[in-house]
């Protein structure tokens, strides 16, 4: 695919979220696009609205034992264990090359304690080139017996307000779908100061090798992603939209522009493309092109499409 000439951004495709101007509503999802630079042989990073980098923690993380992935019908399970180079290495070794592109760089962060989250956020906001922070709250809190921040509204709120207080950057909170009522989580993180909300992270699942009667993944369970989860994700974005005051960023199984438009029509101001990057490393740019084509064909704008679902 290689590089294409970077044409002027179409104003009908642009969107502003939490004060950040995106040239188009398509970003790449955390953990599926590395630190962006790995994709330069295959796609034009300047065609993307934003790049959300692999989840960063205070110290480098080794990740889980192998096998870490397994394919499932129309999807995959992963249990990477949040392996990453650590926030300092990212700032020093990856960010300088990444910020040269005409795309917004969003740092996805996680921690095992609230203090971890705060420190990572602080270091990122002291560095040049990061436009926003996306908080991954689908992680266990080691100080609270491993309860996952993102499944408990009050723990989630604590993380968000702590990060908000440690950073000058806009805060996107990324919600876990592994909850009974997504609206409760939306309200909790919004009240705590989230400037935008992204959803969904992966759904917990597992696969068993019946011949061996053993789980396929070394960690037994993993996170399900890909087209298999898309209807669940669209439903959650639609539910979130009923209560959310801040903009939503939708994701889960987006393979093409049609899929992305479902999220936008359900109420998302922007989308993220994840697993599709593995199938076609040029996916996200193609989704952006396809949304532009749709907007031209329907003589509309992104703004008018957001949350435009007609019921009845």
């Amino acid at each position, binding site marked *: 695919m290689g590089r294409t000439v970077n044409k002027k951004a179409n104003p009908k495709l642009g969107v502003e979220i939490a004060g950040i101007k995106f040239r188009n509503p398509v970003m790449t999802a955390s953990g599926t696009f590395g630190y962006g630079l790995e994709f330069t042989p*295959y796609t034009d990073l300047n065609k993307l609205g934003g790049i959300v980098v692999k989840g960063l923690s205070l110290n480098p993380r080794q990740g889980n034992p*192998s*096998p870490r992935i397994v*394919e499932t019908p129309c999807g995959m399970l992963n249990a*990477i264990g949040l392996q990453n180079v650590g926030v300092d290495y990212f700032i020093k070794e990856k960010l300088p090359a990444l910020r040269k592109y005409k795309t917004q760089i969003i740092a996805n962060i996680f921690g095992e304690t609230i203090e971890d989250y705060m420190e990572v956020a602080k270091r990122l906001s002291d560095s040049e080139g990061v436009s926003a922070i996306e908080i991954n709250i689908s992680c266990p809190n080691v100080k609270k017996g491993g309860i996952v921040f993102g499944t408990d509204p009050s723990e989630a709120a604590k993380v968000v307000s702590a990060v908000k207080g440690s950073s000058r950057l806009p805060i996107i909170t990324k919600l876990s779908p592994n909850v009974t009522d997504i609206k409760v989580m939306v309200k909790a993180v919004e009240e705590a100061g989230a400037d935008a909300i992204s959803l969904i992270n992966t759904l917990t699942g597992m696969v068993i090798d019946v011949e061996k009667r053993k789980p396929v993944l070394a960690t037994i369970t993993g996170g399900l992603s*890909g087209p298999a989860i898309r209807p669940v994700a669209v439903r959650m974005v639609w539910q979130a939209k009923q209560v959310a005051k801040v903009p939503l960023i939708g994701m889960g199984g987006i393979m093409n522009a049609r899929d992305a438009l479902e999220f936008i029509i359900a109420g998302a101001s922007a989308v993220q493309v994840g697993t599709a990057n593995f199938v*076609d*490393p040029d996916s996200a740019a193609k989704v952006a092109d396809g949304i532009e084509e749709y907007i031209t064909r329907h003589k509309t704008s992104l703004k008018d499409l957001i949350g435009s679902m007609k019921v009845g």
Partner: protein
Amino acid sequence: MESAAVKILYNKEVAPKYFKLGLSWKTPPIAPGHFVMLRVSDGLDPLLRRPFGIYNVLGSKGKGTFKGNGIELVYQVVGKGTQILANKAAGETINLLGPLGNGFPHPDGSKKIIMIAGGMGIVPLHMLAKSTEGAVLLYGARDKKVASMAKDFKDTKCKVKIATEDGSVGKKGLVTELLKTELKSDSVVYACGPVGMLKQASIISQAAGVKCYVSLERSMACGIGVCLGCAVKAKTHNEKENKNYRMVCSEGPVFDSEEIDWDAL
């Protein structure tokens, strides 16, 4: 490295469930040990690409690295994806990502090269055989039909010794037994095949104080080092990036066998 839609030149069964697939592709430079990821279907199931080693670069006279107008792969039908591949006909197009991986370190000529392959492990070693002289290939195959692949090594300057599980050709038993007799103190070993075989080859080589390079397989999603799914545990800690795991797709698939924590595989 590129993502390309390429035309199938041929796709023929050479032994039961073993296929040779020719693809028309003006290749970037390819080194022995490189692989490609194929998207076997445009549909959503199977979703992920499948990795395959490169057996031959077509129309190339290269040595060391090869540039040509096509590649040949050899694959075994083991599941859904490879079955879909087997049903494809000449003239159809297929999407390919590659060449990927690090490839074998090029032998410097000071050592006697022993290649050891089990089953499909013969694939990347065929490319290596084409760029070396005076090497020996030890090939472990299920039976006579699979062992017939060894005749492709006639176009290389490489001696072939076979072991089959059923004894139908060559020595009956495990190919690692051949390694024990073949190994000298001035050898270097290049191995590809099932994990059990690689581990044995590693143990035998280490005991003899000989370097052994192994080409590993792992389930893959991206093939380009970003999903971190194809990890293997290393014995050594990478100080610069402070990590214990290596990605088979981007840091491998070829590793110094001493680097791998075999008990964790």
